[in-house]
């Protein structure tokens, strides 16, 4: 066998190896995709048959055997929107500052904060907002606790997005005589604003399904009235689901399934919004 034949054999060997690893990776991807899909189908589809006009517009009645989950939907919408209104601007700002100014210690703290279990934020919110600041069990206390919880997650994501911008671009802006603030807010931030919005919404998606902090700060098992101010307690989808499964048996199972699918619908909507930011406008 001469030299060029030897090279050919070697090449076809590495081509085969490449093809094999590609197939393996693809199979693994499909398995995971199937798992996720199954999860969605089992949680989303069975509950959808309980969707009706009444289910979305009525309050539960007759000991959770009839009516709908309107108060929980309303509560979740209010809490999510309010907490995001608080957390997204602050989180983005914090992420930008952490990335562009040398604040390693604070970043370390933020990283730790983003790993703390949500129930701890609930307890913290209970102590600070509900009791010390006298907000009691209320939408405001819940939204603030949720906002605190997602703030470090949002700023960590924004931090990573900013760090991914090549140093060369910063230098190019400085070379034109830009000041630091002009580099950050007139060049860097505008050029990644879509990614920043996307990552913030993805991070904030965590807020929707949170149960523990809300049980402690905002949610009640059953509200006789709809909330009339930010200081009213509310029902929410995840806590409703928790109460139904923990305290009711078969009679409320239908409502739990229905609530689950609405919750998933919510998640899908928020993530769709998040990814819509990423799409280039024509």
């Amino acid at each position, binding site marked *: 066998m001469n030299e060029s034949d030897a090279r050919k054999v070697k090449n076809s060997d590495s081509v085969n190896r490449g093809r094999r690893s590609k197939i393996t990776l693809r199979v693994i991807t499909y398995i995971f995709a199937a798992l996720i899909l199954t999860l969605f189908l089992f949680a989303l589809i069975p509950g959808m048959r309980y969707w009706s006009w009444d289910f979305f517009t009525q309050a539960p009645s007759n000991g959770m055997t009839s009516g709908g989950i309107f108060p929980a939907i309303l509560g979740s919408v209010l809490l999510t929107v309010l907490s995001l209104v608080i957390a997204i601007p602050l989180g983005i700002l914090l992420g930008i500052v952490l990335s562009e100014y040398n604040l390693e210690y604070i970043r370390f703290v933020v990283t730790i904060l983003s790993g703390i279990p949500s129930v701890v934020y609930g307890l913290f919110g209970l102590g600070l907002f509900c009791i010390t600041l006298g907000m009691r069990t209320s939408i405001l206390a819940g939204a603030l606790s949720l906002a605190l919880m997602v703030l470090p997650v949002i700023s960590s994501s924004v931090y990573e997005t900013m760090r991914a911008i*090549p140093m*060369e*671009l*910063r*230098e*190019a*802006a*400085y*070379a*034109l*005589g*830009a*000041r630091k603030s*002009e580099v950050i807010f*007139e*060049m860097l931030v*505008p*050029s*990644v604003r879509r990614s920043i919005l996307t990552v913030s919404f993805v991070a904030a998606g965590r807020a929707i399904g949170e149960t523990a902090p809300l049980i402690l700060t905002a949610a009640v098992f059953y509200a006789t009235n709809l909330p009339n101010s930010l200081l009213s307690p509310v029902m929410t989808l995840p806590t409703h689901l928790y109460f139904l499964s923990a305290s009711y048996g078969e009679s409320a199972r239908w409502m739990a399934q229905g609530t689950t699918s609405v919750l998933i619908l919510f998640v899908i909507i928020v993530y769709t919004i998040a990814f819509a930011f990423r799409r280039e406008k024509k």
Partner: protein
Amino acid sequence: MIDVVIEVRNFNAYYGDKKAVKDANLKIEKNKITAIMGPSGCGKSTLLRSINRINDLVPEFKTEGEILFHDRNIYDRETDVYSLRRRIGMVFQRPTPFPMSIFDNIAYGLKLIGMTEKREIKERVRWSLEKAALWEEVKDELDKSALKLSGGQQQRLCIARAIAIEPEVILFDEPTSALDPVSTQKIEGLIEELAEEFTIVIVTHNIGQAARISDYTLFMYQGEIVEQNETTKILRNPTHEVTQQYLSGKIG
């Protein structure tokens, strides 16, 4: 009498403890092209990046000695480094278009110098793109993202962005090393034209490039300027041994 714009005097530059430029002395003449040549790691980029103080951004970077711009030391405490960089522009090795439209890339710099009137900005964008020989190619798609341009076009856009704010000096840090031969040729032609209005310093490790476009050449080796002279003289008659070796391809 020659008209000196920049004079480097007993200049040393360090990254931490590592000395990157050793006791450099040179004069840069108005409206001429000065090439800084030498093998990689010889300190040529460091010297160039010291002239507009862009290396201030590098942690651990320190300097000694003076760089005079119109007889004032730019490393003086009272130097306004931002206005210095407006007067000494820079084009980098790899094209660095901002991720925004072609128009906004240039308008960004114009806003920095306080230009607010739309008509004036539009005129200046056009003027600078024409000067950078890019106008004809992009005049109908100024709103397009600058990232969609080819590498050579991106580099010409960066040149347009640099000249739009009308600096006196433009520093080029190996501006064609990431480009194909055709783009390289265009940019070399462009740099020669720009020398009529601007003073140009260009770092290159391409001997042919220095020969084609520069008036003066200085040769650096291991942080020191070993030789400087008119380009034709230095290429024909290198006096220093390392320069001879570099020019004949023995080191590089």
